[in-house]
C-alpha cells in the first residue's frame, strides 16, 4: 500500500502570474529583433519618398554634394563615401599592427597583475566618449600635426585616422586576446619543445591558429571606425573633398548626417537624402558585423 502523499497544487492565480511573466519575458526576448527591424523600417520610411526622384548613379558616384543650393541642389555622396573609406583605411593601417601587437603582448608576455592592469587600462581607453576624442583632435592633435608636418591645417584625414585608431584599438585587443587565449597550450608547448623562438612561435604557430579570431577583431574595429561620428565630425576638417594626401580635409557619411540634419525641415528632399545615407550606413555596418560574428561562431563550433 502506498503512503498517501498530499499533492501540492498551485492556485489558479499563481499559474496566471507565471503565464503573464513568461509572456513578458518572451516579448523582451524578441525585442532585439523588433528594434533591428524597427531601425531599418523607420530610417527607410523617412528617406523612402526621395527614392523615386533618386538617380542611383549620381547618388553613389557623383562627388557633388550641394544639398542647400536653391537653384539646383545636388545629392552625390561619392566624396563622402571616399571620405569614410579613406579615414577608416588609414585608421586601420595604424590600428591593426598596434592593436594585434598589443593583443599578443597582453596574451603571451604578461601574467598576473600586469595583465590585469593592462586590460583594465585598455577598458578605460574604450570608455572615453567620442566627443572627447573629437575635442582632443581639435585642441591637442591639430596643433601637434601643424608643427610636426608643417602643414597649414591640422584638422584633416591624418588627425581623424589617428583618433579612430586609438578608439578602435581597445575592441581589437580584447577580441584578439580572446582569440589567442583560445589557442590550446599544447600548441605552445609543442613549439617550444621543438626549439622555436618566441618570434617563430608567434608567427608560425599562434597567429595562424588564431587567424579567424584576429580577423573578427579587425572587422569589429572596422565596423566601429565606419560608424564613428563625433570624432570625425570634429577632426576631419569636414570639407567635401576627394583627398590627394593624408593632410587634406575630408568629410564622412556619419558626420554629414550629424552636421546637417538639425538644419533641414521635416520631409524636405535634403532631410530624406540624409536618411537614405543612414540606410547605406546601416547596411554597410550590418554586413561587417555579421561577417565578424560568423567568423567568431565558426571558431567556437570547431
Amino acid at each position: 500500500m502506498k503512503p498517501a502523499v498530499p499533492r501540492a497544487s498551485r492556485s489558479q492565480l499563481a499559474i496566471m502570474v507565471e503565464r503573464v511573466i513568461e509572456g513578458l519575458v518572451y516579448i523582451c526576448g524578441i525585442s532585439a529583433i523588433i528594434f533591428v527591424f524597427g531601425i531599418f523600417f523607420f530610417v527607410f520610411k523617412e528617406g523612402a519618398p526621395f527614392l523615386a526622384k533618386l538617380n542611383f548613379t549620381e547618388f553613389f558616384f557623383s562627388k557633388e554634394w550641394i544639398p542647400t543650393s536653391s537653384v539646383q541642389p545636388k545629392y552625390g555622396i561619392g566624396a563622402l563615401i571616399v571620405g569614410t573609406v579613406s579615414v577608416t583605411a588609414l585608421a586601420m593601417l595604424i590600428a591593426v599592427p598596434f592593436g594585434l601587437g598589443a593583443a599578443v603582448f597582453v596574451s603571451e608576455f604578461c601574467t598576473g597583475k600586469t595583465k590585469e592592469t593592462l586590460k583594465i587600462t585598455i577598458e578605460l581607453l574604450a570608455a572615453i566618449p567620442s566627443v572627447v576624442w573629437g575635442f582632443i583632435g581639435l585642441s591637442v592633435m591639430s596643433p601637434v600635426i601643424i608643427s610636426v608636418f608643417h602643414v597649414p591645417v591640422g584638422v584633416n584625414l591624418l588627425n581623424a585616422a589617428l583618433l579612430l585608431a586609438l578608439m578602435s584599438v581597445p575592441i581589437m585587443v580584447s577580441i584578439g586576446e580572446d582569440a589567442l587565449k583560445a589557442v590550446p597550450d599544447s600548441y605552445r608547448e609543442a613549439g617550444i619543445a621543438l626549439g622555436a623562438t618566441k618570434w617563430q612561435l608567434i608567427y608560425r604557430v599562434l597567429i595562424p591558429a588564431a587567424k579567424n579570431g584576429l580577423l573578427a577583431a579587425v572587422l569589429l574595429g572596422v565596423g566601429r571606425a565606419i560608424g564613428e561620428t563625433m570624432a570625425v565630425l570634429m577632426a576631419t576638417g569636414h570639407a567635401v573633398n576627394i583627398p590627394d594626401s593624408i593632410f587634406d580635409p575630408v568629410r564622412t557619411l556619419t558626420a554629414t548626417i550629424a552636421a546637417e540634419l538639425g538644419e533641414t525641415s521635416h520631409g524636405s528632399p535634403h532631410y530624406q537624402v540624409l536618411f537614405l545615407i543612414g540606410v547605406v550606413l546601416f547596411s554597410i555596418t550590418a554586413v561587417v558585423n555579421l561577417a565578424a560574428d560568423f567568423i567568431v561562431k565558426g571558431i567556437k563550433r570547431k
Partner: protein
Amino acid sequence: MFTETPFIRKKKRNEVIAKCFFGFMAAAMVIPLFLIVGYIVVQGAPAISWEFLTENPRSGGAKGGIWAAIVGTFYIVFFSLAFSAPIGVLAAVYLNEYATENWFTRIVNLAVVNLAGVPSIVHGLFGVGAFVYFANFNDGKKSIIAAALTLAVMTLPVIIASTKEALSAVPRQFREACWNVGATRWQVIWKIVLPNSISGILTGVILQVSRTAGETAPVMLTGVATYKLLDSTGLFLYHPIKDQCMALSMHLYYIATQANNVPKATPFAIATVLIGVVLIVNAAAIAFRVYLRSRKKW
C-alpha cells in the same frame, strides 16, 4: 647540467627583443592616452570650481557654469536606463533560461549582434523617425524622452550581453535543485538565479551609465539643445516630455566648435568633468566586479 651556449644566449636575447617589440606596441596605445588625458586635466582643472559646476550657463555658454548640462545628462541617463535595464535583463533571461537551441534563438542572437553594431548616428535617425515624429511625444519637436528612448535602444544589446554572461555563470545545479522541490521556472529565476547573478548584472548596467553620459550624436538629433536653461520655478527642473535639455557631451561639442568668446580653459574644463564622470563610473564598476569575484562562493 645546462651550460649557456651561444645558441641559448642568442635565444634569450631574441626573447627579450620580442618582449620589447610587443611591449612597445601596447605602450604606443596606452601611453598617449595618459599624456592626452593628463594634458586635458591640467588645462581644465583650474577652471573647475564649485560655481562652475552649480551655476547655469550665461551669455550663450561663454560665461557661468554647466549646471544645466549636468542635470540634463542625469535626466537622460536615468530615463534611458529605466527603459533599457529591465528590458535588457528580461531579454537575457529569455535567451539564457527559456530559449532552446534552435533557429529562432539564433536569429534573436544575430539581431542582438547586429543591434550592437549599428552606428550611433543611425540610432539617432531612428530616434527622429520613431520617437520624435511617429510617437510624437512633443508635437514633432525634440524631447528628453525621445533622446532617452533612443539611447535605451542603443544600450540594450550591451546590457543583454553582459546580463547573459552573468546568468550563465550561475551553476546549473542551483536550478536543478529548485526544480526538484517543485519550483516553477519563474520562481527559480526570481528567487535563485537573479539574486546570485545580481552583481554581474549591475556591473554591466553601471558600465552603460558612462556610455549614455558620453553619447552625443544620437541625442543631439532627438532631444538635446545647445542652450536650454533650467526652469527654476517648476516642480521638475526639466519636463521629461515637453522639454529639451542640455547635456555635458553636447555642451562640449558646442563650446569647442560653435560658441563665441569662450575662455580657452572652458572646453578643457567640460572635457575634464566628462572624463572624470566616465572614469569614476567605470572604475567603480571594475572595483565592484573585482570585489564580488573575490567573494564568490562557488
